[in-house]
């Protein structure tokens, strides 16, 4: 695993960054250990057998993923309003027309469909094939979406290694150690400078090699394009709510979906983005209210935060 890690660190920038930031260095080390343990004890094939059960409930608005359904109330207007200015009387169904958006870690397409409904040309990529199939199916079956379907791509390397590469909840929740970087790096190489906006919503906390991931995201963006990240903060507050309360007690999130060590601080993500020639426009905090199943913007960034950045031209 360690050798693999060094093989994957192509970027000198990333190496430098690792060396000079003790926090990420530390957390990545922990991640490696965690994941290795998980891999050595669980047969991925078995997990994959059990997986459809959880994945099937993804589109169930009452299921364990119900929080993600209502999250669109917050994140879609957030993305919409920073991409365009809506004139009064303009039709919502076409307001994002002509915008190319890449949804990284789209999962079953919750956000992709939401953006597609506003008229955007959405491409969703995910490393989990089941989820991509599900997203395609759901979009295809839905006759309401027929004219503006998001384009879903399953980016992976080859079949033999697939089962090793995909973990319990698919990439949407847990992306195994170095592989998503490979996957996404591929996409970002083929589609460099291609997208008006990149949306990475609740994904980066499941990614291990974060520097590379962010770098790839930036590469796929057009100069002057925007990047949106939403992710939990690494605070004990967030740990208490997300991992302890919502996962274990209230069951609003699937159990075991988050690891505290993989969470990020706003400043860390901002630093990574600025390392890649991006200008961070705003950082906003938000909170999830489980009793009403709704999300709201907050002033502090203790729970989760959303970053909006512009790639420099």
């Amino acid at each position, binding site marked *: 695993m360690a050798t693999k890690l060094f093989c994957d660190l192509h970027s000198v920038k990333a190496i430098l960054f690792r060396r000079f930031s003790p926090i990420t260095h530390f957390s990545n080390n922990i991640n490696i250990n965690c994941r290795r343990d998980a891999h050595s004890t669980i047969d991925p094939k078995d997990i994959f057998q059990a997986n459809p059960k959880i994945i099937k409930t993804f589109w169930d608005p009452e299921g364990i993923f119900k929080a993600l*359904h209502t999250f669109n109330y917050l994140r*879609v207007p957030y993305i919409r309003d920073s991409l365009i200015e809506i004139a009064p009387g303009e039709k*919502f169904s076409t307001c994002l027309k002509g915008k190319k958006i890449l949804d990284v870690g789209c999962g079953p397409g919750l956000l992709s469909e*939401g953006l597609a*409904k506003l008229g955007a040309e959405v491409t969703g990529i995910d490393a989990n094939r089941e989820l991509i199939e599900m997203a395609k199916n759901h979009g295809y079956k839905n006759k*309401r*979406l027929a004219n503006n379907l998001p384009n879903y791509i399953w980016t992976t390397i080859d079949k033999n290694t697939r089962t090793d590469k995909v973990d319990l909840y698919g990439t949407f929740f847990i992306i195994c150690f170095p592989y998503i970087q490979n996957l996404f790096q591929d996409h970002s190489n083929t589609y460099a400078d291609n997208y008006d906006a990149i949306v990475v919503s609740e994904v980066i906390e499941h990614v291990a090699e974060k520097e590379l991931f962010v770098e790839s995201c930036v590469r796929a963006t057009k100069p002057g394009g925007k990047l949106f990240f939403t992710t939990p903060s690494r605070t004990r507050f967030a740990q208490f709510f997300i991992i302890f309360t919502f996962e274990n007690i209230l069951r609003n999130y699937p159990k075991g979906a988050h690891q505290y060590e993989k969470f990020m601080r706003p400043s860390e993500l901002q630093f990574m983005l600025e390392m890649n020639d991006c200008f961070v426009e705003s950082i906003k905090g938000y909170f999830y209210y489980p009793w009403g199943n709704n999300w709201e913007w907050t002033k502090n960034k203790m729970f989760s935060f959303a970053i909006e950045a512009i790639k420099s031209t």
Partner: protein
Amino acid sequence: MNYDVIISGSGLIGLITAIGLSNDSVSVAVIEKNSLPRAVDDNRAFAISQGSKKILEKLGIWRLLEGETEPILDICILDGDSPFTVHYDHKMVGEEPMGYVIKSAIIWNAINKNFLHKLNIYSPRSYKTISCDEGYMEVTLDNDQKLISSLFICAEGKNSRLPELFSIPMIKFDYKQNSMVFNVKHELHHQNLAVERFFPGGPFAILPMKGGYTSSIVWTEKCEISKMLMSLSEEEFVIELKKRFGSYLGEIELEGERRFYPLSFSFARKLHKSRILLIGDAAHSIHPVAGQGLNLGMRDVESVIRQITAAKSSGIDVGSNYLLKKISYERYFDNFTMALATDGLNRIFSNRILCAQVLRNLGLMVVENSDFLKKSFVRHAMGFI
């Protein structure tokens, strides 16, 4: 054809919802089984509360009605011939009148002329099948046309069969009362005073109408008595009417024809199922004792428009379960309390039982002397909760 929302029933509530939603860039289709525009032949009047007026104002309907409405400034409540009365004055809450009385013909003409051509209307059509699937629903009309949408709003009125077909539990019973609705001309100006007088047969309401010398009467009586009254000739009817109306407005005479409507109570215990949402009288048909049926429906409309527009602008499926749940959470309590209150009022006032008589007179006395209670009742009647 592909729509965001299909509305079944083109009553007032259905059309206002359609107008409001299409203002906000949601694509709407309306299915109506009778042909449109409907002929307006009744002389009913609607009492529109201040809250409903604000909603109509927002939708751009109110400006078409301006000049045709008569404000209600005071309300008087009497119990038969007992000396206890309650007098509500609009000045207790503010400068605005408590509500407005509008002839139904005026509101219908305004809608027919200005909005009907903007809406996608399927009439006279009824639906054969409704099938819900994940992400959308499909409605087949009786000419085999297929409409696809995300949400089906049922605004078909109280005789709708849809709740039954989708086995939505309803509470239903008959009041065994009929409401007679007609207009009278009177000698003296009504001073914008609405009167509600309770008799053992049911409430008797006088609503001030435009001009100052006509009033709309809603006379609720037990079935048998109302049938007997309807069969009377006009002269005889006026004699009976005078016994109830009193002489405070001088001589009276009938204007136009009399009509009667049987009253029943129905209340949906669930407002939504799969992708069906009940609003207006299809969800709650209540006793007209407080004149709140339409206003309650208007509050439904407001909530539906607000929530659906918010969902639409966020790219959320407008027929999704949590959206419908949100709407019904918002509406259910208000619907329920209003249904309970009107039913309770009717029950306690429309009888001759001594105990109830004492109780209601006591109640009237308390309300008359308590500023707080009066204010809160007025606020509620005005549509500000």
